[in-house]
């Protein structure tokens, strides 16, 4: 195995060397007074007992360490979940906000690029202390101080200008849908991607990168929807993008605008429910974070991730397959829809319905390791790529182990996971192929006459 080539010796200096223009420019404009006042505002007005209890109750026992793939990969005590709290809010609360711009720089690096907000550690801390929440508070402070990594801030700008993550213009969006409709008609005559249809059973939304880089996924979804004879629609106007980088930068005002627009697009069309493409963070933003920010305990309209939807298709026998997918597969459980929504058993139902050979990776289900890309980390862009891949070492080991048992294909039903796993597979020479469920289903689908 080529695992040996991955060993990194100088990991401790790694984060120090990384320079990010967004963070650098941000801290140049900071004064101690401004830092203190922003911190006070966030801590006094936006947080309460939860933060206090999380920071004060922590017994410094280190049991959360084995919960975090950063620590497991790098073996550096600075990367344990509690250590990230120590280097950020622990210090800030002890000093009552009197910290230096340099401190904020380090804190921003930790909060934005050394935590995937995957919440695995909450399952390893005996007290269930939620370090991801503490990191989100740190990000909120950084955002309000204007200290955000450049690349992810650019996607947040795109969100606020174009209401989608990838600067897709309104006409480009419609063009893309019509183009994919045409392409898909080669596979299936009379196929339609119905736009703005009122009262449809399904309002299908995707993330910004789909029309930009992975348009074939829209094509595949259209084929599956048509094969299942669904009464479905996609919106022609902004509101089609369910992704949310503002949730990760700490720009909650913008996150609320995005989520409201998305919900309203579906509700205005009187759709029965929203079905979302195979994305983890977008699901989290719609199902968990954004709805709460807007004051809804649960989303105002039912939201269904693709896994749940595909599972339903097989359970209700709405689609048929020609033959099972032959090559041995393994399954990566994305945090945001497994620890975030418990879809792991449904995912296994789909694997069993579509694939002939299934090999579990371990640990799996709720205990699966994150791909190191989540929580906006991959969106912080090239400056952090090497560090991100280094922290995926434990993931690489897990993939190698599944490969040793014969797995050739990794199913990862999440866009971010694809990005993260692709880099890990490439860097460590794992040589496995990545697929979405949509890819597999499309490949073996029996098309109706």
């Amino acid at each position, binding site marked *: 195995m080529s695992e040996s080539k991955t060993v990194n010796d100088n990991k401790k200096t790694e984060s120090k060397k990384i320079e990010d223009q967004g963070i650098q420019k941000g801290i140049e404009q900071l004064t101690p007074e401004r830092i203190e006042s922003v911190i006070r505002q966030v801590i006094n007005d936006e947080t*309460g007992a*939860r933060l206090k209890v999380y920071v*004060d109750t922590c017994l410094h026992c280190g049991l959360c360490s*084995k919960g975090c793939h950063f620590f497991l990969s790098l073996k550096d*005590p600075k990367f344990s979940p509690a250590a990230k709290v120590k280097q950020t809010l622990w210090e800030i609360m002890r000093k009552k906000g009197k910290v230096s711009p340099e401190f904020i720089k380090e804190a921003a690096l930790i909060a934005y690029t050394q935590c995937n907000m995957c919440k695995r550690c909450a399952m*390893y801390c005996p007290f*269930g202390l939620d370090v991801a929440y503490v990191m989100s508070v740190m990000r909120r402070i950084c955002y309000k101080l204007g200290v955000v990594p450049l690349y992810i801030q650019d996607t947040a700008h795109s969100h606020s200008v174009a209401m989608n993550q990838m600067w897709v213009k309104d006409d480009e969006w419609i063009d893309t849908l019509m183009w994919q409709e045409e392409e898909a008609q080669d596979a299936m005559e009379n196929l339609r991607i119905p736009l703005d249809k009122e009262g449809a059973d399904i309002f299908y939304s995707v993330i910004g990168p789909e029309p930009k880089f992975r348009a074939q996924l829209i094509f595949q979804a259209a084929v599956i929807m048509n094969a299942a004879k669904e009464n479905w629609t996609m919106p022609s106007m902004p509101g089609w993008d369910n992704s949310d980088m503002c949730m990760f930068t700490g720009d909650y005002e913008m996150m609320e605008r995005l989520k409201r627009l998305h919900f309203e697009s579906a509700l205005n069309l009187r759709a029965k429910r929203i079905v979302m493409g195979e994305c983890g963070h977008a699901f989290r933003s719609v199902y968990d974070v954004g709805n709460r920010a807007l004051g809804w*305990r649960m989303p105002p309209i039912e939201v269904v991730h693709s896994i749940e939807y595909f599972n339903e298709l097989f359970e209700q026998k709405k689609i048929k397959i020609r033959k099972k997918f032959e090559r041995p597969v393994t399954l990566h459980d994305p945090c945001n829809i497994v620890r975030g929504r418990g879809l792991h058993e449904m995912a296994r139902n789909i694997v069993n319905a579509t694939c002939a050979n299934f090999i579990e990776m371990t640990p799996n289900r709720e205990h699966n390791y994150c791909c190191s890309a989540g929580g906006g980390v991959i969106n912080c862009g090239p400056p952090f790529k090497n560090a991100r891949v280094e922290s995926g070492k434990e993931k690489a080991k897990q993939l190698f182990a599944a490969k040793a048992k014969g797995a050739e294909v990794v199913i990862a039903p999440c866009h971010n996971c694809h990005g993260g796993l692709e880099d890990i597979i490439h860097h460590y020479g794992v040589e496995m192929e990545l697929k979405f469920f949509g890819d597999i289903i499309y490949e073996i689908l029996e098309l109706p006459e």
Partner: protein
Amino acid sequence: MHSYYSFVTGPLAWIAFIVFICGSIWRFNSLWQLTKKKDSAVFEYMDRKFALRSIAHWLIPFGSRSMQLNPAMTVATFLFHICLFITPIFVFGHVMLWKENFNISWFALPNMAADVMTFIVIGSCIFFLWRRIKLPHVKYLTTPLDFIILMIVAAPFMTGFWAYHQFPGFVSMTIIHIVSGEIMLMAIPFTKLFHMFLFPFTRGYIGSEFGGVRMAKDW
């Protein structure tokens, strides 16, 4: 010596109990009020069934994957906590004190058992100390206060053992024993020792979030 003794078993004991009880109520209440004011969503998502489910898994030895991955720590923490609570309540000397002062009495531990349990507490404290010094990821998190708290917890057991077995100087040691016990009681509301009261709430909350919203296990 006698006047010291009557002071630490009289007024100081009352003060210790009052500080412990009132302090705990105060700390608990202030957190409760703060939650109501600033984190009211916590009540919205708290769910008795899922909270209890999570708490139960974390109160059963090896009930969580985390405990399975850290077997030594699991054994040490369980034995430690059990002995920490049982020993002071059922040790013969304490039972006698209750009998003499309030005329209520209950089962007392045989001496052997009390000794063994005392050793378990002290032994676990040494284990915790070892972790803090030797394991890099624990050392990194450790503050001076963590050592002090460990001392506060171990002291009543070490001194109690000494006094009970009437080693040299046991008379003064008895007084130190009583004072150290009182310090521990008084420290609970104001230090991390308060975790014993917060555990059901932090665990219960994350259990509710995982169970009710995320529909996933958290152990």
